[in-house]
Structures are given as structure tokens and as C-alpha cells.
């Protein structure tokens, strides 16, 4: 079954070239995406800190803008219990309450079908 194995098939078909270009491109796109996201976030945080300052807050440090360790631990615990299938707890901890908007005639949104407008 593997007797047909012939490395020259790869070269003849540009296999190496395609692979190298392909792998590089995959890397490049995700790298660029990562870089853009990082810069975007920095720009946002700078802006946010300015706002907070102008509102009279003490210079907000990066800690304040992130999830604190405790919160993270709580989430992790919840997830742990979740995956361990402690069902009773699971439903308490992770249930996300969704309030479905009712579509009364007045918000039926023919065509527009739009959600209820703010303002």
C-alpha cells in the first residue's frame, strides 16, 4: 500500500514550494492579526485612561482594566465543576439568564424587523 511512496512526486508538483509559501502565509496572517489587535487595544486603553482621568479618577492602572485574579479563579472553579459534571452546582453557576424580547404587535418590525430602538 505504501509501496508507491516516491519522494520525487513532491518536487515535481511544487509540493515543497506550495507548503513553504502556504505555511508562511498562515503564520503571517495570524501574526499580523495579533499585532493589529495588540495595537488596537493599546490605543483603546490610552484613550480610556484619558477619559477616566478627565473624570477625576486616580490614574487607572492596567490592573483595574483587567479581570482580577480572584474573578479568574472563580471562573476557573466554575468551569472545573462544570466539566466534572457536578450537575446541581453546574446549573446554578453557569446558567445565563436570557430575557427574550417579546414581539408585541408594536414591535413587530415589519420589513425593518429591527430591535427596539434606544432614545
Amino acid at each position, binding site marked *: 500500500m505504501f509501496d508507491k*511512496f516516491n519522494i520525487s512526486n513532491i518536487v515535481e508538483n511544487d509540493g515543497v514550494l506550495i507548503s513553504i509559501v502556504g505555511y508562511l502565509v498562515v503564520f503571517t496572517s495570524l501574526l*499580523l492579526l495579533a499585532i493589529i489587535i495588540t495595537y488596537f487595544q493599546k490605543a483603546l486603553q490610552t484613550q480610556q485612561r484619558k477619559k477616566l482621568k478627565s473624570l477625576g479618577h486616580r490614574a487607572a492602572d492596567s490592573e483595574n482594566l483587567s479581570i482580577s485574579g480572584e474573578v479568574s479563579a472563580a471562573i476557573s472553579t466554575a*468551569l472545573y465543576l462544570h466539566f466534572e459534571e457536578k450537575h446541581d452546582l453546574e446549573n446554578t453557576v453557569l446558567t445565563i439568564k436570557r430575557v427574550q424580547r417579546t414581539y408585541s404587535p408594536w414591535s413587530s418590525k415589519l420589513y425593518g424587523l429591527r430591535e427596539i430602538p434606544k432614545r
Partner: protein
Amino acid sequence: MDGINQFIHFTGFANLTIEHVIMLCIGLVFIYLAIKKEYEPLLLVPIGFGILMGNIPFVENVGLQIGLYEEGSVLNYLYFGVMKGIYPPLIFLGIGAMTDFSALLSNPKLMLLGAAAQIGIFLTFMAALALGFTIEQAAAIGIIGGADGPTAIFLSSKLAPELLGAIAIAAYSYMALVPVIQPPIIKLLTSKEERQIKMKPPRAVTKLEKMSFPIVGLLLTTFISPGALPLLGMLFFGNMLKESGVTKRLADTAAKPLIDIVTILLGLTVGASTQATQFLTQESILIFVLGAISFMIATAGGVLFAKFMNLFLKKGDKLNPMIGAAGVSAVPDSARVVHTLGLAEDPSNYLLMHAMAPNVSGVIGSAVAAGILMGFLLKVF
């Protein structure tokens, strides 16, 4: 007597072959794994039952219009969405509408792990070439290493429709078997200390970042790899519906009835496409072997790249190299495998959120790879 003879001639018993029996057993195994082991049940149950339905023996091409490959049959009509690559983008739409990219946004450098694991695709591609597959077939086989069912089906439907069944079954089988395949490889490539590394809690992500991500992601990835547009366009579109905050209604529908309907039809027909008379060939077996290798290489690629990144990171920022394995995608199973391994080493080490970042970027990575392969191979001029 004539009528009875004719009736008997048409029964499944009269047309049964050993190949049918083998395929029926495979179908039963799929269903068993789905129910008993809960390996990817939402896909293995439809695929497994589809295998059963596709391997009920019958007299072909006499106008009964039963089989998936007979024009005019119901299965044939439903298979249209697989053959034309319509179902996979719709599944990506639903997936986008249920995916929270926060983990990835809070630590963008982890995206590189999702890129690294795609090495499995390209090495398998070359191996398949060496084994004598055509270049289009080799590309479709390689994408199994992307560990994304819809991407594999989409690329196969465009490049090598004749292998679609085998590739789809292989991709989903190994995705289901991730908890079996990955742990030994991860353990082989990491030391106990590495496996115990704790990572900093991820930072919070603002609504604006989450809203902007689908737009930035769409523009960047599809400008680089336009062939990925059908898949990534739909993935990011679904995510836009979710994160916009004003289209919850549409996101809910994309993430529930729409994706469910498509999953039912895709799973069933992919399963039924394994009709014994067409499926049990040496090629199919080769594809399965290559697929397994592909998954292993991808896992190793992710883990080794994480170790490589650690060389450049300062002490408190080091990665737990196990999360590299989640870069293969097979979302969310490989992330969960990593999490479980982490807990085994240190019951207070919760790696899931960290592993989700390479996990979802692996999805983007393999879709980009699929787009590039299409760009190279679908050229007409």
C-alpha cells in the same frame, strides 16, 4: 412465484455483501462511541446513522431512487449542500454566532500557536503527494490535519469530490478521538515542570474590541487569502451578529436552528456517502492512515512552537507548552484535553481559558491554509 422472486431479488438480504457488513459495523461503532463515550455525539450520531442508511443493500440504478449516488433520490438532493460546499460555510456561520473570541483577544500572541499547528496540513500534503495522490487530492487529504470538519469538507468538495466521504469521515473520526491521540504526544514532548507552568489570568476584553474583531479579522485574513472568504467570511459574519449587540435575534437563530438543521443534513449525508460499493478502497484506508499522522504532527507542531516561544519570553510570562496542542483546533476538545492534563499535574492549574486562544485561532489558521491551497490549485489559466 415470479412476483415473490422479484421481491426477494430486491431485498437487502439478496444484495448483501461483506463490504456492507463491514460498513454497517463501522456505523454501529460510531453510534456506540457517540453515546457511550460521548465523543462528538452531535456529529457521530448523524454520521453513524448515515453510514447505516447508506449501506442498506439495494439494487442500484433501476430507478428506485434510494441511494445517495442515485440522481433524484432524497439523499442525493440533501447531499447537494455537501457536494457544492454550501453546508460548511453555514456551519461556520453558526459557529461564529456561538464563539466568544475573548480568550484570543486578551492574549493575541497565543494566536501563533494556532498557526504553528497547521504544519500538520502541509507535511501530510507532501506525504500524500509522495504516495501518488494527485496534487488536488493531496491538498484535500492534508487539510484533515486542520482538525476542522467543515473546512475539510469544503476543500474536498472543491478539489477532490471523489474523496469527500473518506476525508470527512477521517476528519470527524480523529476529531472525536482527540482525547485518545493527543495526551501521549503532549507528555512525550514536555517535562513535568513545563506541564506545571501557571499562566497569568487573562485580562478583560471590552465590548468594542469584541465588536471590531470580526471586521478586522475578515479584512485581514481574506485580503491575504481570498479563497478563505466563504469559510472565514461566514465565521466572522456570525460573530458580528453575536457581538453587535443589536442582532441577538439573528445570532440566536444562526447558533441554534440553522446550524442544527445543517448539522443534521451534513452528518447524515456524509455518513451515507460511504456506500460500501464506492467507499471501501485502498485509497480510503491510506487516507485514514495519513489523517492519523496529520493529527499527531499538528499536535507536536503546536507544543514545540510553544516551547520555542518560551525561549523569548521572560520568566513570569512563560507559556505552559501544553496549550500549543490546542492549536490543532478540534474545538473545544483539544482545549479540554489540555485542561484535563493540566489539572492532573496540579489541581489548581486551570488552563482552559488559555487553551481556548490557540484553539479558536487554529480554526482561522486552517481556513486560511485552505484558501491558499485553493488559490494555488484552482487556477484555470
